[in-house]
């Protein structure tokens, strides 16, 4: 079977872009990704695309061109972008196609994501009494984790401080002003122990990745990167997830643990081989826990890792080098693809002020979202 290459990457800046629709941001990203590898939209044999709040991805053809290609819409919550990429990977791996694109975009209204408990099969009472908030889940997961593994509030502050600092160095990031430790540590308490500047916000943006078979990639002028693994997994019984009313006493590992293990197995390498990583940071506690769930450190070791700066751009395993969701916001359809974009930038050595040292050859991405699914990739030169 062929290897799957990433040959083109494109991104529409994240954040708030008034007057530009989500679809237009998606089209912008696709055009940039095509220019990146010297191809035309008419060269694309297939596309997988998704958006949760900004329209049907397949209507991008109205703007990009009605070429008759196979275009499939993907809707998979916060892992929509990761799922589009995984689908594109399979399309090429199967041998059916040798050139196509994964695209994601979004444009969410300001403020918290709207929640409708009854649409999720949850009783109306749950929303009525003020329990249907994703922020409460994240807070209670990290609260328990801090208690069990001795993680301090300082670690949560430092993770956020790092990501805002990295975002300030990334041209596509939304929040380009670094925040100090004190600004984060004294920001309003949203859901104890998580404060305002420890949370990401819904936002806007678009991202596109052009994939090719290894054979096809060799015919192109750009230096290809290779997608060595791409896996999406959903939750098992007993995993603690958002909007849980009754949590089982038996505890299962999160879907991130499953997705991560399967992705490493697929790529035939281990966490120790990864030189740059993007880990889902819905809030700074999530990034902290995901370091362990993805196999990069043992539970509780984050305290030392963060204190010693291991995940900073100049550290031994830089994490969220473009500021992650904290600095970019979370346009659901595009978020997972942004992580892939950023790893590609780093592996190409094009990170500019945020470029990690030591000439990285292997990178990793992890996206996680409601109602309990994770997508991971491993990308190498």
């Amino acid at each position, binding site marked *: 079977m062929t290897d799957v290459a990433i040959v083109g990457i494109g991104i529409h800046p994240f954040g708030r872009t008034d007057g530009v629709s989500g679809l237009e941001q998606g089209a912008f990203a696709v055009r940039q990704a095509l220019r990146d590898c010297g191809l035309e939209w008419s060269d694309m044999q297939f596309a997988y695309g998704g958006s949760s709040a900004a329209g049907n991805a397949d209507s991008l053809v109205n703007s990009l061109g009605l070429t008759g290609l196979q275009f499939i819409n993907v809707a998979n919550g916060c892992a929509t972008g990761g799922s589009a990429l995984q689908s594109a990977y399979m399309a090429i791996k199967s041998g059916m196609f040798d050139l196509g694109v994964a695209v994601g975009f979004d444009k969410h209204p300001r403020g918290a994501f709207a929640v409708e408990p009854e649409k999720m099969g949850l*009783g109306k009472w749950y929303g009525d009494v003020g329990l249907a908030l994703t922020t409460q889940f994240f807070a209670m997961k990290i609260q328990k984790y801090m208690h069990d593994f001795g993680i301090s509030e300082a670690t949560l502050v430092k993770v956020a401080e790092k990501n805002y600092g990295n975002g300030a160095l990334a041209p596509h990031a939304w929040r380009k002003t670094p925040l100090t430790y004190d600004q984060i540590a004294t920001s309003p308490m949203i859901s104890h122990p998580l404060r305002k500047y420890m949370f990401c916000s819904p936002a806007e943006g678009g991202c596109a990745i052009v994939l090719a078979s290894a054979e096809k990639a060799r015919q192109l002028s750009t230096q290809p990167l290779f997608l060595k693994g791409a896996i999406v997994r959903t939750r098992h019984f007993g995993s603690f997830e958002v909007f849980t009313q009754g949590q089982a006493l038996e505890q299962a590992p999160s879907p991130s643990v499953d997705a991560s293990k399967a992705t490493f197995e697929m790529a035939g390498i281990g966490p120790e081989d990864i030189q740059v990583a993007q880990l889902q940071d819905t809030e700074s506690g999530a990034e902290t826990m995901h370091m362990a769930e993805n196999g990069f450190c043992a539970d509780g070791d984050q305290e030392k890792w963060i204190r010693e700066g291991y995940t900073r751009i100049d550290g031994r395993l830089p994490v969220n080098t473009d500021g992650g969701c904290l600095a970019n916001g979370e346009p659901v359809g595009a978020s997972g693809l942004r992580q892939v974009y950023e790893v590609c930038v780093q592996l190409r050595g094009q990170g500019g002020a945020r470029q990690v040292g030591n000439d990285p050859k292997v990178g990793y991405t992890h996206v996680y979202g409601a109602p309990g699914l994770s997508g991971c990739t491993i990308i190498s030169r």
Partner: protein
Amino acid sequence: MNQRGAAKALHKPIDPKLFTWPSSNPRLLGSRCNNCGTTSFPSQTSCPRCCSEDVTPCELATRGTLWSFTIQGFLPKSPPYAGEETAATFQPYGVGYVELPDQVRVVSRLKVSSPEELEIGMDMELVFEPFRVDEDGAEIISYAFRPVA
């Protein structure tokens, strides 16, 4: 006196399937799987663990231990939130999972709203209380947990 108004219930459970109320000893309701023994909350007609449809409604314990908690620090968006507070009158409230021994961990509002008064592992007990008054003037009863004195 308006007879129609007088005939209305003065108290209503927030959801009749959620707990036994009114009752001298009200309990939360769950369901127990007759195949694998898993307890679910709220009650459901199949087992999320083994997929069996052989499940029986059951009453849940009224005491347990605090598994995790947070403090809701801002007025939740309405809808879905149905509380009567305004941004000006809102007071943060505690939220947690209470582990009921050998049953299930249930999500609940807590009667305590400062993190200093909460500790993972502490003993908690179930209480019932009016949550709000509906458009017919009836008190809507919901449940909460509080630390055991």
